[in-house]
């Protein structure tokens, strides 16, 4: 099997921002257990800026690493900036992913998007 980059392994072995946020302002959940990937993303948002992000993931090494990297990329960003993050931004930040694992980075980006949409919905901004 094609190996993971050191950065992917680092984010898998020592994931950043694992957990839940109580009273999160937005929560997004994507994927499904049948495919073997589920990501749940929690956001704390103040003045249109992501103050904190935490995640829980059921999935492979790449799924965990992309979740972890996605939280690092969005903390401190405005919602617009966070929405601009694409799956390839996440993959590049991890020094790349094996081709069969690219869908995992897609999932991470979708989880962020879903959490922001949840926040907007709650605040009647949609």
């Amino acid at each position: 099997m094609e190996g993971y980059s050191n950065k992917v392994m680092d984010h898998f072995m020592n994931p950043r921002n694992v957990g839940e946020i109580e009273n999160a302002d937005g929560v997004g959940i994507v994927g499904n257990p049948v495919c073997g990937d589920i990501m749940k993303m929690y956001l704390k948002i103040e003045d249109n800026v992501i103050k904190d992000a935490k995640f829980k993931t059921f999935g492979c090494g790449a799924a965990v690493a992309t979740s972890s990297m996605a939280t690092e990329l969005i903390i401190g960003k405005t919602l617009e900036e966070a929405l601009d993050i694409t799956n390839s931004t996440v993959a590049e930040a991890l020094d790349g992913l094996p081709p069969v694992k690219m869908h995992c980075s897609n999932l991470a980006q979708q989880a962020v998007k879903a959490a922001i949409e949840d926040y907007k919905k709650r605040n009647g901004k949609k």
Partner: protein
Amino acid sequence: MFSMREIYLDHAATTKLKKEVLNTMLPFLTEQYGNPSTIYTLGREAKKAIDKSREQVAKALNAKPNEIFFTGSGTESDNWAIKGIAYANKEKGKHIITSNIEHHAIIHTCKFLQKEGFDITYVPVDNEGIINLEELKMAIRPDTILISVMLANNEIGTIQPIKEISKIAKEHRIYLHTDAVQAVGSIPVDVEDLGVDLLSLSGHKIYGPKGVGVLYIKSGTKISPFIHGGGQERGKRAGTENVANIVGIGKAIELATKDIPEYSAHLQQLRDMAIEGILKQIPHTRLNGHPEKRLPGNVNISFEYIEGESILLMLDSKGISASSGSACTSGSLDPSHVLLAIGLPHEIAHGSLRLTFGEENTKEDVKYLLETLPPIIEGLRKMSPLYNQS
């Protein structure tokens, strides 16, 4: 890199070549390079070595030497058995019966034949992985030419009732093939006792070299040649023989079948210690496969709420090599067809771990595994959105 304990628990994937086997092979990679088809001494010596290996394999399987054919792998043997019988007997019929937990070497060959106009029935197994004999009987038709059922499964280790299947096949005069790649060396494999017409095995699963396999073809079986060319393997599998590998598989099978009860008892002790320890220490866990009718060295366990590749990466970081039936390790989106066939829901199949023991493993290895695995599972579960800690 600091030194770390290294424990290999993936003997169903491959095994380490034995020194004794290597030593018998080396002369044929160096000075004894003759082509076995030539007439001078150098060639005759090579031919003699192949003949000796054929006898060793025949003796191990209780077959006759002229029923042993060397191939390039277990997969090739499976391909040859299925396609060879299909092509040679298509006037009689174009129907083949197999199970839905076969190795891909069988399943993908059958799928290929389906495109060529053959009809395949995939008989289901029960939730411990044993083939349903009633459904097998019901699947038989006047145009059925072959039944192919593996002797032991590579993922869950379930051992199939081949002798009973043989009775059914004989009654209907249908050829019976068995893929014995995982079974040879671990349990007794006697072609007469099993009553099979064709049997596949592989060198590298029995501490022999990679790149060599065997197909046993019972005398009188109508089968097409597999590779066309020169007269090697009695015109059925052409190409200059891989003499060193053939010598290696002969020695390997001789050693592997020397004392099966002792080897099997060693494996079983480790297997049962691992199964018992894991099921006792870790909640939300289930054993996949049959509790007794399973290979002595096979452990296959599902851990709820987590995914297999993550377990493998964590184990690897602690020096343990293992395998899983999760989609991520198969390179597709679906988890193992075997685990789905025994009725596991997708999410449970994704969380499976296969450990297969071998000769060099010890109780110390199992102890280390039982210390290492629980915190890994706990850590991954804490990260899982499916797991409710309470």
